[in-house]
């Protein structure tokens, strides 16, 4: 496979107060792939992923050291502006977060509107394309003006995905996007991620190992902020090299 490396994480450490939440992570991510991050709760998965788009540092008493190179540029370089960086990275959270008081259409394009420089027709086109990519277009095309919060949980989550896709980021981060959803909605989103892999790089945190084995090309296993093992999903789940990984996967701990 001639896929390029789109994201390089080098010696990444993250602190939160006195807690050393992420310890010396070194990883590389290929473009147009899906990588899952699994591990027991509270092991730094969410913190790690928030370091990748510099959201972690918004918390009080937190700091990050190390480098994260997105397409060759270190996002933690001193002259880099976190606000700008986030334009290139999309993020979806565990709880669906449509902005209240805004319609479905407005929610989809809000990222674009903030950046500016698009005409009305461009916005409309991008909104339609994003909603289609998020498998939501058919369900909302007749009610774009309705409140974003009037959708069901699964639909809201797909709306958030559409919103993230609208700014066309090469990298998409997902923090347990289906934990709050029912199985049918979950299945829809997994189907969606499968499609997304053709165009985007996805890093998804999940506590559901079956999900990871279903949709991810690669899987990383974290425990308490340490990267225990990383590799192709099929290998991790059938033949892990580290004992801790094996214990977790077989349910012996975590």
């Amino acid at each position, binding site marked *: 496979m001639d896929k390029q490396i789109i994201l390089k994480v080098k010696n990444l450490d993250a602190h939160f107060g006195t807690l050393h939440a992420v310890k010396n992570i070194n990883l590389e991510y290929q473009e147009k792939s899906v990588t899952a991050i699994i591990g027991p709760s509270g092991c730094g998965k969410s913190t790690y992923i928030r370091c990748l788009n510099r959201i972690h540092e918004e918390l009080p008493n937190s700091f990050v050291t190390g480098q994260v190179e997105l397409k060759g540029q270190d996002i933690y370089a001193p002259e880099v502006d976190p*606000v*700008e960086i986030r334009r290139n990275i999309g993020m979806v959270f565990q709880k669906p977060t449509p902005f209240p008081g805004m319609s479905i259409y407005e929610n989809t394009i809000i990222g674009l509107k*903030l*950046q*500016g*420089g698009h005409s009305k027709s461009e916005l409309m086109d991008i909104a339609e394309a994003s909603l289609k990519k998020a498998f939501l277009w058919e369900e909302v095309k007749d009610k774009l003006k309705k409140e974003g919060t009037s959708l069901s949980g699964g639909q809201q989550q797909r709306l958030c995905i559409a919103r993230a896709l609208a700014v066309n980021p090469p990298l998409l981060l997902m923090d347990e996007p289906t934990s709050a959803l029912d199985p049918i909605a979950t299945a829809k989103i997994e189907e969606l991620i499968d499609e997304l892999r053709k165009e985007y790089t996805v890093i998804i945190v999940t506590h559901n190992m079956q999900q990871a084995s279903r949709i991810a090309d690669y899987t990383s296993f974290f425990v308490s902020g340490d990267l225990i093992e990383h590799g192709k999903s099929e290998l991790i789940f059938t033949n892990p090299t580290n004992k801790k990984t094996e214990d977790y996967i077989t349910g012996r701990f975590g």
Partner: protein
Amino acid sequence: MNRLYFRKIKNFIFLGLISLSSLFIIIPLSILLVFLISKGLHGLTWSFITELPKPAGEMGGGIVHALLGTIWILSLASFISIPIGILGGVFLSEYGEGFLANTLRYSADLMTGVPSIVIGIFTYALIVIPMKSFSALAGAIALSLIMLPTIIRSTEEILKLTPKHIRKAALALGVPRWKVIFFIIVKGNISTLFTGIILAISRATGETAPLLFTAFGNMYLSSSWKEPMATLPVQIYNYAISPLENWQNQAWSGALLLIILILILNICARLISGRFDVGHGPKFIFMKLRKKWTSKSF
């Protein structure tokens, strides 16, 4: 890039403005406190607190009649409003559905919005006119009308915080319902209830308008509830608008005394509840009201 730059400027200006906003609170308040202390402190002597006022024009004199008057009238008002208020709150929290309960709730909400001077006029009509004189009793009733709705609502909200399953567990023990209410629920929340009450009292301490035509005022020490009685806020008012400099100075010392009294009450309330961010005033009630208004159909 141009657009991002513009957004960043907007960001900077906005954050700067809202950071400065707090100064508009801190600066006037500091000026007020400094002024109050500087003008009132030297007059706040032991003789000031223990002596009666001297006739107009003479130097010296004290404010003990107003201090005692405030304490006396507040005690009477508490005596009236606390039992009724707590029982009303208990009714609302334990038997809170139904026409009577809703009517009570709406009426109490209504009352919290009534300006205190209107309450003063009502008490004037109800008590002063039949008695044909201003009286401490009238003042106490006026204050209790002001304290009552607050005590009712705060009692209701505090008691409602106890989860339902505790009531069920107590009933399952074979305890009659009224005992569950008073000996378990109320007793269990007594310190928080007390806090709410003390805060209601501390607000009533500073009320002036309803006392203007009820307790009216007195330059002498009065101990009868049938006669007009001086209170700190009203005395401060009378001194402040008088032309005599001695009295104006005493207004400041009286004001300092009043604020110290209120602060003591507030600190007591906080200490009892053990928390320092509790709010049982309009804010608390408003938050509950807002939740109620937005969650039920209107």
